[in-house]
């Protein structure tokens, strides 16, 4: 008696075929042609990317930037989720509210807030100078550590929410059993809670990583013009240099790299599920 599920899928599927898959195919075709008209087939754009150090080091820097920012998110995000999972229902709502507040606030606005904090006369430098940690104002804007710090703040909720979802589903009896059997809190965390929550950790890492490497606004505003990552590189080649075929090739390379990273993490996640027995 239920209505046909396939028919309900069709409208959105049509939109995705016409305005998501088709553009991606056109992008792929353009990346393989010598000019914007797309007259001849060539691999020159890809060769240009992988033979020029300037180009492939941008890809490498971007992928590495994602790893660093994701690790920071994990180190700070896991404890939030862990404490949240143990809190009373009321506190849990408050904590989740505080965690999702930043993700719903405009990324431009959040990044802008960091400029007020990280600038030469920003809050952080005032504190550092007052405490005599440094004699000179620290250069934080337009540096990679600055970009990593801001990315971690901007994307942290994407790490916390999936971990929290898994942590709240773990049977508390398992941790109790571990303690009764003589394992301390750290050992219980390391041997019981952490392995069981790995699927959430992996899901969080996938979301955080893909968000960090593609975070155009944060990368450009905090990194400035000298720190170039893949999204800015695509934008500059497409709009600044007006070299559409090359920009298309960079886009394809970047998408494949992100998908490969996601696939790798998914694979690790599958392995961890059998290991954790969850």
């Amino acid at each position, binding site marked *: 008696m239920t209505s046909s599920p396939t028919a309900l899928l069709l*409208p*959105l599927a049509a939109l995705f075929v016409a305005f998501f898959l088709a553009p991606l195919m056109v992008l792929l075709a353009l990346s393989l042609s010598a000019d914007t008209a797309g007259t001849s087939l060539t691999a020159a754009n890809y060769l240009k990317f992988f033979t020029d150090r300037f180009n492939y080091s941008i890809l490498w820097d971007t992928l590495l930037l994602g790893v660093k920012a994701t690790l920071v998110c994990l180190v700070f995000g896991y404890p939030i989720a862990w404490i949240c999972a143990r809190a009373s229902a009321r506190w849990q709502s408050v904590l989740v509210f505080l965690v999702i507040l930043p993700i*719903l606030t405009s990324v431009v606005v959040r990044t802008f807030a960091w400029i007020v904090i990280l600038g030469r006369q920003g809050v952080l430098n005032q504190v550092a100078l007052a405490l005599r940690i440094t004699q000179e104002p620290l250069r934080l804007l337009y540096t990679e550590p600055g970009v990593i710090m801001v990315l971690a703040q901007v994307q942290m909720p994407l790490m916390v929410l999936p971990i929290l979802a898994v942590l709240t589903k773990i049977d508390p009896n398992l941790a109790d059993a571990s303690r009764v059997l003589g394992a301390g809190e750290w050992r219980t965390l390391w041997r019981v809670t952490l392995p069981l929550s790995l699927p959430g950790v992996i899901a969080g890492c996938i979301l955080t990583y893909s968000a960090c490497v593609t975070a155009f606004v944060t990368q450009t505003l905090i990194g400035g013009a000298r720190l170039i990552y893949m999204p800015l590189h695509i934008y500059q080649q497409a709009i600044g240099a007006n070299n559409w075929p090359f920009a298309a090739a960079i886009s394809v390379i970047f998408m494949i790299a992100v998908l490969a990273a996601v696939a790798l993490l998914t694979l690790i996640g599958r392995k961890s599920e059998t290991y954790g027995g969850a």
Partner: protein
Amino acid sequence: MAAPRHAIDWEALSLRLIFGALAAIAIVFLVGPTLIMLLTSFTASQSLKFPPDGLSLRWYLALLDADQMQAAAWNSLVVAFWTTVLSVVLGTAAALGIARGRSALARACDVLFMSPLLLPALAFGFAALIFIHKLGFSPNIPFLVLGHVVVCVPFVLRTTIAALSQLDPALLDASYSLGGGRLMTFRRVTLPLIAPGLGAGAFLAFMASFDNVPVSLFLADERTEMLPIHLWQQIETNLDVRTAAVSGLIVMFTLLLMLLAERLAGLTRQMR
């Protein structure tokens, strides 16, 4: 290797302390910047210094004359509105299809519809621009809305599918056996029960569209300025305190909508 009793207590304490400290730092880190920016926007001076030199509403009042920003804000609101409407209609239908369908097609669609969350939105925006050009069109608002729907519909799908999976099928069977048709069952049984999930998804989609830069960068035509892009350019070129005032307004507006969404749809429950 049974540890003495006092050692176990110390261990529990050390774990709580370290995790508590990390979480506390993280919470300050998450909320602090927005608070600092909000306070800075009430400054009485010309510079974006924190703590501000005196408080005033002068930069907020200055927004009354900022025609360009007002036009950009209006454009962003209109696009976010239509994006949300389309995302809710198409997303709800697709969510029903995915939640009820067991076929390989339904699962493939699930992966396809969620992929914009992971793929670089900027690359998609560029691809859409090339595509529009190949078709012989120029960027315009309807194309911009379609592009936004592609990147915003995953939010509606995620919360709606989650809500549907908690729906007891016995309720639907009861409605059918009492003579309720498909449409009536959807309107009177399914829709009221998934409304909080749908509402939370619609809210997320609206905010994602209102804040979108990577797609708008390519699909907005020259005359149509979008608010986040306008702000992005302002911040990159000259740090105007009016930018802080607009940001302050956006933060307050977001907070208000969030509290409303929490009241009406239990936002924090939907996000978990």
